[in-house]
């Protein structure tokens, strides 16, 4: 492979330097990866332990045989399926609302000239910097006064009114779509609504997918909103239910069951991440570009 003549040792050559850097980078990255992965390992390890092995010192690292029954015990002790169903209903409707409202609004911001458009767009972008706390109390009181507290509506309805980040991403993407594609349709008398639906939407599938995965993860992991709006246990999402597990008499402080529940709860976003990784990466890259 590398030939180093007697005078210059291999590690002083350009190629050797490069090889050396790669080794250093690899070692550092492996160490970091170990730190990232260790909590997951510990979680799964605890989730598969029999109760008597959880609080042992020194700890049991790999429980043999693994207790897959822990997961089943969680499912029978608490209505986990119910929580999962609630969560997925909310996530699905929030995704529909977000994709529809944001792509619709973004078309207006990208394609139609109306007085005040840029001002409105700036205001929408400014909401990105707004701390959620400042709108929290009045929003809660508003939903309370229309009797929506303890329903899914406060979690779902706002999604139908767009969010700054997704509108921004979509608008930027629409601006890169050549207008010529729409000219022909316009000459044929197609309305803006038709152009949006049958030309722009199909062309923006990659961005829509990016927004969809971020919306899924954000809504699925959201804790605060369901915590303040949902009080009946039948309405809990997985996130809220989990937070009550640690104090619940049904699961109590039984760490192996709690970790089994946590493990199950992270499976959906993890699967989505594995399946749709390039969309996550694309979204981050796009969000960084505007900096």
């Amino acid at each position, binding site marked *: 492979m590398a030939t180093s003549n007697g005078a210059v040792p291999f590690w002083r050559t350009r190629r050797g330097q490069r090889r050396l850097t790669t080794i250093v980078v690899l070692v550092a990255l492996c160490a970091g990866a170990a*730190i990232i992965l260790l909590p997951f390992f510990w979680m799964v390890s605890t989730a598969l332990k029999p109760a008597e092995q959880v609080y042992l010192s020194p700890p049991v690292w790999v429980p043999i045989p693994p207790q897959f029954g822990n997961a089943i015990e969680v499912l029978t002790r608490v209505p986990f399926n119910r929580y999962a169903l609630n969560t997925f209903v909310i996530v699905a409707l929030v995704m529909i609302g977000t994709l529809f409202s944001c792509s619709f609004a973004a078309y207006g911001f990208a394609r139609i000239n109306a007085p005040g458009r840029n001002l409105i767009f700036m205001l929408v972008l400014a909401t990105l910097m707004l*701390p959620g*706390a400042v709108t929290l109390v009045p929003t809660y009181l508003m939903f309370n006064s229309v009797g929506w507290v303890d329903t899914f509506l406060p979690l779902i309805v706002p999604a139908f009114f767009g969010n700054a980040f997704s*509108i921004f991403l979509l608008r930027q993407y629409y601006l890169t779509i050549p207008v010529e594609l729409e000219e022909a349709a316009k000459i044929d008398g197609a309305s*803006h609504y038709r152009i949006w639906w049958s030309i722009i939407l199909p062309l923006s599938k990659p961005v829509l997918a990016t927004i969809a995965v971020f919306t899924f993860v954000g809504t699925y992991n959201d804790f605060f909103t369901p915590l303040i709006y949902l009080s009946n246990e039948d309405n809990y999402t997985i996130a809220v239910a989990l*937070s009550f597990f640690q104090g619940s008499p049904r699961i109590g402080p039984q760490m192996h069951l709690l970790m089994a529940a946590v493990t199950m709860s992270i499976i959906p976003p993890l699967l989505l*991440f594995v399946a749709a990784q390039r969309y996550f990466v694309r979204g981050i890259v796009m969000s960084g570009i505007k*900096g």
Partner: protein
Amino acid sequence: MTTPPLARETGQTEAPRVPRPARRWNREALHGYVFMSPAILGLLIFTLGPIIASLLLSFTDYNILTDPEWVGLKNYVDMFEERLFWQALRVSAIYSVVSVPLGLGLALGLAILLNHAMRGISVFRSIYYMPTVISGVGVAMLWRWLFNAEFGVINVLLGKVGIEGPAWLLDANWALPALIITSLWGVGGTTLIFLAGLQAIPEELYEAAEIDGAGLWSRFWSVTLPLISNVTFFNLVLGIIGALQVFTDAFVITRGGPNHATLFLSVYLYQHAFQYLNMGYASAIAWFMFFVVMLLTVLVFKSSPLWVYYESGRQEK
């Protein structure tokens, strides 16, 4: 790259410079407003309206059950006299001042490592980003278990190298550091934003610097850092806003304790709004947070010409 191409946009709808009938243009604008309507309504109903309502509420005493009563500045006066408010402010300030710079530094370091061209690098990128995807209550509970004083894996590993770990979440001195460590675990999102910025730096600049005899450090200092500064700026603004709003970790992992050691402003606000139903007082806290975030954002923006490098001719917002 994303400079608003205003010329093209306006060119597109006003392309034929012949005067059109006014009605036609009005109808076009009307369609525009229809399209923008979700955003406009959202802005009014879920942002502007609540901001104003929140300001008004902060001058009242309101517990939902009885009508709001106008009390002027009383909530603000009470707030500044309340010991726990200062504690909450202190906790949020320490957390932000420590976790934001640490997170930015760590993220930039990792991004530089992840920018190294080698086989299998994308696997590492995925691993580092993974915690961001599954953040939330589950992960918070996991960290509670990791920080367990006696059986948690952190103290077990510390014990292996001969360090007796603190009681972490049970120790008022160590609970906040524990939450900062937790936040650093989720630094992958910031890392990938930095990585995107690094990949946009032209390779020739490094080659030129190398020809001039610049070592690793001076290449980092004079090429990477200036060219990445706009991304740093973006991450800094987002980091400050995020750090002041931390809730899930503080609420799930420590419930604000022990002895208020992790009573973040957001937790303090939650307690007043939804446990004591002090809606007026909670609004005052919210407006204070709003004020602080605005102040910090303006400071960062104003200071940016001093440390953010913009290529000449490149328009930046």
